[in-house]
């Protein structure tokens, strides 16, 4: 059912904006399934999906990538956060069919994303150093969210607590308050928040 082309391209793990018209044509009128092509952690997958299938369920139930977690299934907890075309998103609210042509990075692909030697992304290493989790169920989402967040801040995107005088377009300095606000879409019931913020600060420093 799934055809995974073994085209593992390191460079392709970088975010690229997908072209407007990738992939196959529309499904026939009235069809409730379509073929979609996705790159996930550098691997291409072409697969038939039920239009109701979310990206999260596709990852977890079809592609055996269970690192992305289902905490609420409604965009209320952030445990399902992945990077789609370089941006952090809640994969539980994205219909897979609408992601045709997308470049997806999950927690399983973060280390490759960093492109460095070693098995872990620096942020994963920092999470270990700071004991920034307990049960671990929110952790993949926290990690993907933080990776996306760092890129947003680097690009100068403001948050609700950014000083309006902050220069347009320049990178936002990530204070503790900024980090906390920007990561608030990732709930952690074990209460590891203080350590998560420390870990994020470690990779900024």
């Amino acid at each position: 059912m799934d055809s995974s082309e073994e085209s593992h391209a390191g460079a392709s793990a970088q975010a690229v904006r997908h072209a407007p018209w990738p992939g196959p044509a529309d499904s026939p009128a009235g069809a409730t399934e379509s073929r979609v092509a996705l790159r996930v952690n550098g691997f291409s997958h072409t697969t038939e999906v039920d239009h109701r299938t979310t990206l999260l369920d596709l990852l977890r139930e079809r592609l055996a990538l269970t690192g992305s977690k289902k905490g609420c299934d409604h965009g209320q907890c952030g445990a399902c956060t992945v990077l789609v075309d370089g941006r952090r998103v809640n994969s539980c609210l994205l219909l897979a069919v609408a992601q045709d042509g997308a470049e997806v990075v999950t927690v399983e692909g973060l280390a490759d994303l960093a492109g460095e030697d070693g098995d872990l992304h620096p942020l994963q290493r920092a999470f270990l150093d700071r004991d920034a989790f307990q049960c671990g169920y929110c952790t993949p989402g926290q990690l993907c969210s933080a990776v996306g967040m760092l890129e947003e801040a680097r690009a100068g995107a403001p948050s609700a607590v950014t000083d309006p005088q902050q220069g347009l377009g320049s990178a936002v300095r990530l204070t503790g308050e900024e980090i906390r606000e920007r990561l608030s879409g990732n709930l952690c019931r074990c209460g590891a928040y203080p350590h998560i913020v420390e870990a994020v600060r470690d990779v900024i420093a």
Partner: protein
Amino acid sequence: MKPVSYVRARSVEEATAAHAGRGEARYLGGGTNLVDLMKLGVERPEVLVDITRLPLDQVEEQPDGALRLGATVRNSDLAAHPLLRDRYPVVSQAVLSGASGQLRNVATTGGNLLQRTRCAYFQDVSKPCNKRVPGSGCAALDGVNHDHAVLGHSPHCVATHPSDLAVALAAVDAVVELAGPGGGRAVPVTDFLRLPEDVPERDTVISHGELITAVVLPPLPPGSVSRYRKARERASYAFALASVAAVLRLEDGVVSHLGLAFGGLAHRPWRARRAEAALLGARPTPEAVARALDAELAEAVPLRDNAYKVSLARDLAAQVLGSLTATA
């Protein structure tokens, strides 16, 4: 969730045609609310018309100085846009105070306006709700209504509109542009979103098949200042208990322009016309502001659990107007 067909529209015309064409259709933008509601069984579309690849994803300056926000511009791109941050800080702040970074990366301008109420009875298909099933009753009226409306509600519905963005858009007199099978039209956002009256199933004046293509922000009066502030139950990632968007211009210490809107209080952003009229041409002293806000909120009719909203909204607005007065 029942099986659903899917059309990826390549043009606005194709989108509206597809919407009109087959079965019960919904436009799919970011989907952050639609997919949520499909899972809850509240939305049961037969056709999804994906509009995310339409060329509606730009923020453009118009010759008259207005800013045209494409319907599919993602919330985070909107909030970060230099022109918006520079000229309409209230709009940028409103967007950033809503949802989470992940949701804002996906949710769209048009979808934000069309999101449905977070009334817990509306979201639970086993409970009576006139908005979901006309004529079934309003469970919130005598139920748990801590989060519900204090202004403009009806015996048929006491829900509030959840959007932060819409409140700011109401304060800046934004106009919603629509395309439909019968052509296009433009509607002020304050008219686009409606009060429940006896048709609570209609959140907006949108007609079947119509698609939001853009929201246009008219130029604000030169020298005006603006701000958005919301009160909520946790410091982030929560809907407003009450919120305020305000645009203020002072000339010689006198109010020459005021756009004031409340969120969290009503079925749509509540444009405070009475308070605006009371303050226009006046010095915005704390006493004058208090009188104007009291006049505005005099018509509030709290429910069992939400009387707190009236004084909360009043104090929030007084604070916002006070801080704008200090900087104007």
